[in-house]
């Protein structure tokens, strides 16, 4: 059994609590001094940094939501001078307003260490060849695992997403041992590798798969097809990226890197903190970041937390795989999609906001279809004429969402209108 940072991963509870309390108090002082937004939130509640001395004081602080982040866009929550910030990452948001997260060099180092812990937990070391086909760029997946692999000292293949032929060629030729990507892409790679008869030519022993929901069934299927052990990883751009929590060999939940991220589980309706073992919304506070520390950020992910001792020897609290969302966000092929984004594009392109999103999973890959109703303005007597407008719509959707749906034109008034709230999303994925 090996660990990247055993002193933290196996810290006795009391030691961890003291460290968390000190870091929380320091972070509160830091944001109160440097971020007017936080100062206002705290002043409104009559709180000063002196009121937050230990993790027990955490519930005194107000929650932060994605709306707060959008309101603060772009620089409102930046807690250091620009001179100290070295990177942004971003997540898609509604109506063109994205969420931007900032990092100092130290923030990136700590994030990379979190990912390094995940790689080591999956059996990775200096001798390994880590194949990263998460997207690189604004998406945190690629940069996170790439940085983690560097910290471990593994040979890193910065493949990014797409071009399956090339992915497989590098995997075979360079003898990749650890694969990092979304579970649906891993399943797709597995199918393709088997089709090409290359199953005996790959050397994968582990996979670190995250950024979207997947089932135990899917895990076993990928493990069997690729002959590896599949580990889950969790994260969100707002808090840092992948590596907020990670799975160990026990495969019974993800250890939260709680020396950096405090985790709470709350009742999404009342905001009340729930006891361990109860199902609720997970809330994170980043307590070691400098550029963009968030306190009590509501993730909208529904999970269960557990402090049951783990056979891997880590004392870090575990969270279950997210079991759902408290809002209408969909995760399709690892990308966050809000129905309201689709509505915005339709309105901008002169369509009525009557649409339906149909998501299905076929051969472990998400199928994403947007059905819109034909309008007199869109209609033409030639196929070419309609296809051109269909293309415009598809391109606008693609640039708003970052992924490409299939657009299907439906007859006018054929999409069901219900009395109350229209059914906008049909998610047929069985996860």
């Amino acid at each position, binding site marked *: 059994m090996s660990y990247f940072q055993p002193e933290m991963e196996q810290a006795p509870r009391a030691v961890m609590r003291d460290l968390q309390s000190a870091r929380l108090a320091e972070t509160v002082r830091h944001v109160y001094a440097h971020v007017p937004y936080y100062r206002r939130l705290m002043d409104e509640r009559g709180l000063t940094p002196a009121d937050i001395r230990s993790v027990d004081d955490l519930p005194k602080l107000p929650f932060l939501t994605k709306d707060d982040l959008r309101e603060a866009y772009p620089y409102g929550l930046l807690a250091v001078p620009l001179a100290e910030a070295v990177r942004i990452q971003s997540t898609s948001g509604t109506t063109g307003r994205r969420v931007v997260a900032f990092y100092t060099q130290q923030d990136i180092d700590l994030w990379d260490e979190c990912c390094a812990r995940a790689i080591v937990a999956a059996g990775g070391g200096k001798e390994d060849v880590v194949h990263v086909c998460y997207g690189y760029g604004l998406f945190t997946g690629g940069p996170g695992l790439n940085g983690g692999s560097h910290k471990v000292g593994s040979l890193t293949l910065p493949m990014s997403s797409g071009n399956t032929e090339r992915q497989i060629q590098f995997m075979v030729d360079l003898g990749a041992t650890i694969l990092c990507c979304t579970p649906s892409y891993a399943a797709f790679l597995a199918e393709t590798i088997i089709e090409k008869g290359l199953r005996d030519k790959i050397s994968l022993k582990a996979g670190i798969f995250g950024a979207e929901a997947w089932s135990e069934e899917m895990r076993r299927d990928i493990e069997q097809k690729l002959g590896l052990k599949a580990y889950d990883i969790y994260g969100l751009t707002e808090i840092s990226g992948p590596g907020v929590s990670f799975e160990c060999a026990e495969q019974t939940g993800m250890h939260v890197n709680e020396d950096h991220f405090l985790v709470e589980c709350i009742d999404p309706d009342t905001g009340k903190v729930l006891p361990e073992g109860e199902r609720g919304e997970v809330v994170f506070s980043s307590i070691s970041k400098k550029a963009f520390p968030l306190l009590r950020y509501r993730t909208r992910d529904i999970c269960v937390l557990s402090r049951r001792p783990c056979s891997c020897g880590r004392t870090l609290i575990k969270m279950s795989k997210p079991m759902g969302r408290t809002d209408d966000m969909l995760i399709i092929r690892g990308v966050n999609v809000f129905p309201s984004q689709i509505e915005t594009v339709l309105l901008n392109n002169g369509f009525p906001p009557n649409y339906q999103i149909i998501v299905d999973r076929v051969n472990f890959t998400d199928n994403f279809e947007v059905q819109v109703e*034909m309008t007199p303005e869109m*209609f033409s*007597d*030639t196929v*070419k004429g309609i296809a051109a407008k269909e293309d415009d719509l598809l391109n606008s959707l693609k640039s708003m969402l970052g992924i490409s749906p299939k657009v299907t034109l439906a007859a*006018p008034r*054929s999409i069901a209108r219900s009395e109350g709230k229209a059914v906008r999303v049909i998610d047929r994925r069985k996860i």
Partner: protein
Amino acid sequence: MTIDQISVFMENRPGSLAEVTALLGGAGIDLRALSIADTENFGILRLIVSEPQRALEVLRAAEYVGSVTPVLAVPLADAPGSLAEVLRVLAEADISLEYLYAFITRQAGHAYVVLRVPDNARAAAVLAAGGIATACHEEIFA
């Protein structure tokens, strides 16, 4: 000279064509010609009917999306080579076709070809110069 064609958006599902023709039949509208362009997801039904404006109103009232498009109808002798001659004249003038379809009439030995071109006036002039006439609505429904 042009005639009015109506075009209707059709979903690819069983019964949709039956619905449209039943609506038009019920309204006493006579169909003279019909063609369907189909893609993977939808179809475009094109019709030459006795009363194009009223036909469109009937369909719109039933929530169909459609439009009226002026197209050329060229009378042809029902004999080998007559369509080839029309197409040769257009090709020589470098006129492209969006689509075409043909129909015969009650008069023996006569057929019509419906042509959808980017510029009706220019195509009609080119055809006329080649000794080829274009029909009007009244001629087709005579």
